[in-house]
């Protein structure tokens, strides 16, 4: 015997596929939607479909966008000579929030992760190389995550791109602001020392 009527079980199953949603959360959301008005449910369904239909990848930088090229790529006030490489569209937002970066972006949609079957072929690199060969760009800032996958990706990119005569830099890694040296493990401490700068 099933616990729930088939349509409800199906909804719970679909919700469970979403990141961070387990059985309990899925049940809670499903019951909430069951109680909601038909209009409310319709609005949610429409929003999901709209996002799926209207959002595409920018052909230049792979950011999620409604217009192609995206708002960053078409903004003439941005520095056309510097490109910041990030793993995901939400990493792009993190960099953008600093308001300190005024160049262009490139989204890889992942990082080198053999355990997840992700090698260079699975990353969105082709249009980056094309853009770099255009000759306008002089610096590439690699802002991939400070973990094994992000580091391997950064080194891979620098080997690939330095021969094109473009400067490749890596964001600093190390001790998070607000924490204490005492609690830093050796890897983190080493990264912090490697990334030191003159003051």
């Amino acid at each position, binding site marked *: 015997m099933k616990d729930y009527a088939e349509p409800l079980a199906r909804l719970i199953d679909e919700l469970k596929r979403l990141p*961070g949603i*387990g059985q309990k959360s899925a049940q809670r959301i499903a019951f909430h939607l069951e109680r909601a008005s038909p209009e409310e449910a319709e609005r949610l369904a429409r929003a999901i479909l709209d996002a799926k239909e209207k959002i595409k990848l920018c052909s230049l930088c792979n950011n999620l966008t409604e217009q192609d090229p995206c708002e960053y790529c078409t903004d003439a006030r941005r520095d056309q000579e510097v490109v910041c490489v990030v793993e995901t569209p939400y990493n792009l937002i993190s960099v953008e929030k600093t308001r300190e970066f005024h160049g262009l972006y490139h989204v890889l949609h992942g990082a*080198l*992760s*053999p*355990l*997840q*079957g992700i*090698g*260079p*072929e699975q990353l969105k690199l082709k249009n980056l190389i094309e853009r770099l060969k255009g000759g306008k760009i002089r610096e590439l800032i690699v802002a991939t995550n400070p*973990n*094994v996958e992000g*580091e*391997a990706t*950064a*080194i*891979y990119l620098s080997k690939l791109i330095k021969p094109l005569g473009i400067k490749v830099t890596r964001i600093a890694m190390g001790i*998070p602001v*607000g*924490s204490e040296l005492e*609690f*830093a*493990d*050796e*890897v*983190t401490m080493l*990264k912090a020392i490697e990334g030191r700068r003159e003051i």
Partner: protein
Amino acid sequence: MPLRETEALVLRTYRLGEADKIASLFTRQLGRLRAVAAGAQRPKSRYGGMLEPLSYIRLWIFERENRDLLRINSAELLESFFDMQKDYRLQVAAQFVAEVADRFLPEREVNDRAFRLVLAVLRTMKQSGETNRPLVYFDYWLLRLGGFLPDFGHCTSCGRGLADAPVYYAAGFEGLLCEDCRPPQAMLFTARERLARVVERCQATLSHWTGEEESAGDLREVRHFFEELIEAHLERKLVTRPLLDEV
């Protein structure tokens, strides 16, 4: 809830909810197991880089009755393989080792020889920057320790002596095959002499396997055959395996 101390190699981690991680660990004193590292996804987590793939750590864990999942109380880093994996080639090789260990080793079974094997293989890759010999050595010994090393002198299917006749290997078969037993997709195995030399070399420690030049090409066929044996035993394809040949 007893607190246990053990050394461990981090095989991989998964996100758990918003803040935690589940780590698949090959521990020296408790065998392979999964444990929750609370708060490990947070930027200021006390785990820092300790739970990156293949970190060699000491940890203290709570055993919970009737629960598969243990909980990490604290950990300290003994040796990092982070910098080694900056080199994509070494990252792929190291993570192949992690994936195979994760799939191959039975849960909660202490295996000190396998533990020392994985550590020696990682250290050799880190020191020499070489992947060919360490990977072949790892495959050989893991198969042998698991009791899955076939008799290379006989067909695994019909048991006939293979002598000098052409031999084959194929996905899903746990040894070499004779002409009559080979399935249509089987590959001709041309490296029998090399295989005999590899077996001989593997009888000593990995650090003794030096001097003679062993290029990727020299060892590729033996490595492919061993990988086929591992996948045959696991009854599944390894995710990292295709990447080994792309680098």
